[in-house]
C-alpha cells in the first residue's frame, strides 16, 4: 500500500463525479421535490409549492396507487421465486454430459441476450389470438379460456409475467450451472453410499451448498423485476384499466403523462426505499449466514 496525498483522489474523482451527479444528487433532489406540489400542466402549479407530506398521503389514500402496489407485489412474488425455481430445475437437468447438451443450454439461455423490448414484440406476435402459437399450444393441452391475453383484464399482468419468466429463467440457470459444476463430486458419492435418494440429496446437499448462488440470483431477480417494464410498455401499456401497471410504469405515467413532478418524485423515493431496503437486508443476510464454498 502506497501513501500518496492527492493522486488517489484524482483517480477516483471521475467515478465519484458521475455517481454524485446521476445517483446521489437525483436521489436527494427527488426527496426534496417530493415535498412540493408541482404540476407542469396546471399554470398555478408550474412552479413548486411546498405542501409537506401531502404527495405521500395522497398516494397512499389513492386506490389507484394501492392497486399499483398490489400489481407490483403480484408481479414480483409471481415471477421471482418461480423463475429461480425453474432455473434451478433446468440447471439440474442440464448438468448432464449427454451429446448436444450445449444446444439445450443455448435454447434456454438465448432469451436473456435479447433486449426486453424485442422479446416483447416477439411475444406480441406469439400471443396473437386465434392462430398464435401460444394459444395453439395451450389448446392442445386442453385450454379453452380467453385468448386475447394482453387485452384481458384478468390475464394482462399474467401475460407480461410469462414473458419475464421466459426471458430470465435461462439467465439464472447459468449461475446455478456454474455453482453445480463447482460442487465436489465426492460429497455426492458419499451420499450415494449412504443411500440418500435424489430428493434427499437435493434438499440436504445441493440446495444448502448453492445458498450463495440463490441469494445472489434473488438479488438480481428482485431488482430486475422492479426496473424492467419494457414489455409492459409495448404489450399492455399498463392496462387494461391499470390492471398491469406496476410501480415503475406508474412512475413513468405520473411524470410523463400526468406531468405531476411532485408526485413522481414521491413515487421515486418509495421505489428507492424499497430497493434499498431489499439490497441492505440481503447484504446483512449474506454476511450473517456465510456458507463455506464447496
Amino acid at each position, binding site marked *: *500500500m*502506497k*501513501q*500518496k496525498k492527492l*493522486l*488517489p*483522489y484524482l*483517480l*477516483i474523482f*471521475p*467515478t*465519484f463525479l*458521475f*455517481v454524485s*451527479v*446521476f*445517483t*446521489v*444528487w*437525483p*436521489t436527494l*433532489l427527488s426527496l426534496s*421535490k417530493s415535498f412540493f406540489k408541482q404540476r407542469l400542466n396546471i399554470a398555478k402549479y408550474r412552479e413548486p409549492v411546498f405542501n409537506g407530506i401531502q404527495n405521500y398521503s395522497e398516494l397512499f389514500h389513492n386506490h389507484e396507487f394501492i392497486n399499483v402496489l398490489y400489481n407490483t407485489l403480484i408481479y414480483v412474488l409471481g415471477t421471482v421465486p418461480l423463475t429461480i425455481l425453474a432455473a434451478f430445475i433446468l440447471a439440474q437437468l*442440464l448438468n448432464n454430459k*449427454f451429446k448436444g447438451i450445449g*444446444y*439445450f443450454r*443455448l435454447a*434456454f*439461455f438465448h432469451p436473456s441476450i*435479447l*433486449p*426486453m*423490448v424485442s422479446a416483447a*414484440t*416477439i*411475444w406480441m*406476435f*406469439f400471443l396473437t389470438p386465434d*392462430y398464435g*402459437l401460444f394459444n*395453439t399450444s395451450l389448446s392442445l393441452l386442453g385450454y379453452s379460456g380467453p385468448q386475447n391475453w394482453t387485452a384481458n383484464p384478468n390475464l394482462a399482468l399474467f401475460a407480461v409475467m410469462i414473458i419475464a419468466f*421466459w426471458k430470465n429463467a*435461462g*439467465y439464472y440457470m*447459468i449461475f446455478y450451472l456454474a455453482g453445480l459444476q463447482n460442487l465436489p463430486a465426492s460429497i455426492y458419492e458419499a451420499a450415494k453410499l449412504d443411500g440418500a435418494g435424489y430428493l434427499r440429496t437435493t434438499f440436504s446437499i445441493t440446495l444448502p451448498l448453492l445458498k450463495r448462488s440463490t441469494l445472489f440470483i434473488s438479488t438480481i431477480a428482485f431488482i430486475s423485476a*422492479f426496473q424492467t417494464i*419494457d414489455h409492459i*410498455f409495448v404489450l399492455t401499456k399498463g392496462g387494461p384499466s391499470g390492471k398491469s401497471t406496476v410501480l415503475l410504469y406508474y412512475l*413513468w405515467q405520473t*411524470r410523463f403523462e400526468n406531468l405531476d*413532478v411532485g408526485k*413522481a418524485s414521491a413515487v*421515486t423515493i418509495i*421505489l*428507492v426505499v424499497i*430497493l*434499498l431496503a431489499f*439490497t*441492505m437486508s440481503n447484504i446483512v443476510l449474506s454476511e450473517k449466514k456465510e456458507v463455506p464454498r464447496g
Partner: protein
Amino acid sequence: MAKKHIKQTILFLVILFFALLWIAPVIWSFVASTRPLSDPMGRGDVWFGHGLSLGSYAKAFSLAPFGRYYLNTFILVTMVLGVQLVTVTLAAFAFTYYDFKGKKFLFTYILLQMMIPTTALLVPNFSTIRTLKIYDTILAIGIPYFGSAFGVFLLRQAFLSIPGSLVDAGIIDGCAWWQLIRHIYIPSAIPTFTAFAISSISWHWNEFLWPLIITKSDASRPLTAGLVRFTQLGEMGAQWSLLSAATMLVIFPLLIAFLIFQRKFIQGFLHSGLK
C-alpha cells in the same frame, strides 16, 4: 441397465419438449419475417408462405431509418464502454494500490450506484439532462453510466488478486503509476475487462426506457427505441411479417455475436453476477 436407458430417454424427451417450447417464439418470428407481405398469415397457415421474401426487411428499412439506429446504438455502446474503461480502471487502481483517508467511505459511496439502479432515478435524471442542455442526444443516453460502481467493484477484485511480487518488480524497475497500470494491472486483468465489456455492451444495446424518454428524434434514437414505431403495426394486426422483420433487425447482431463468442458471453454474464 435397460431401465436406466429408458429413464435417460424419457428425461431427454422432456428436456427436448421444453427446449423446443423455449425457442418457438424466436423461431416463429424469424419464419414470419420471411413471408411475402402480400401473403398474410391465417388459421392453419402460420409457417412459411408462398416462397421466401425479404420484402418485409426492405419495407422495415423504408419505414424507419435503421441504418441511423444501428449507427446510434454503435456510437452509444462504444462511447459508454470507452469512458467506463478509463474511469473504472483509474478508480479500481486507486482503491487497490493506495492507502488514503476516507477510502472506505468513498468506496461505499460509489457502491450506492449498485444499490439504487439508475432506472429508478429516471425522473430526476431527466431534469438534470434538461439542465445540462443535452436532451435528445446520444450523450444524454450514455452519460449516467459513465461511472460504473459495478465495474470498479469487479476490477478491484481482479486487481487485488495480482501477486504483490509482480507489482514490486514493476516498482523496482522504476515504473510510474500509469506504467504500473499499463504494464502490470491491465494485462493481468484481461478476462475481467472482457467480461465487463460484454456485460456493458449488452446492457446498453438492450436498454429501452431511458433512451426512449431522453430522445425524441431519429437522429439520436438507438435500435430499441426505434423499434417502438412498429409496435402499433402489431396492434392493427396482420402486419406480423413487418413487425418480425423489424425485431430481427434489432436482435440479429447480438444473436450472431453471441453464437460466435458464446463462451465469452456466458463468462461475461456470469461475472456480472459475481459478488
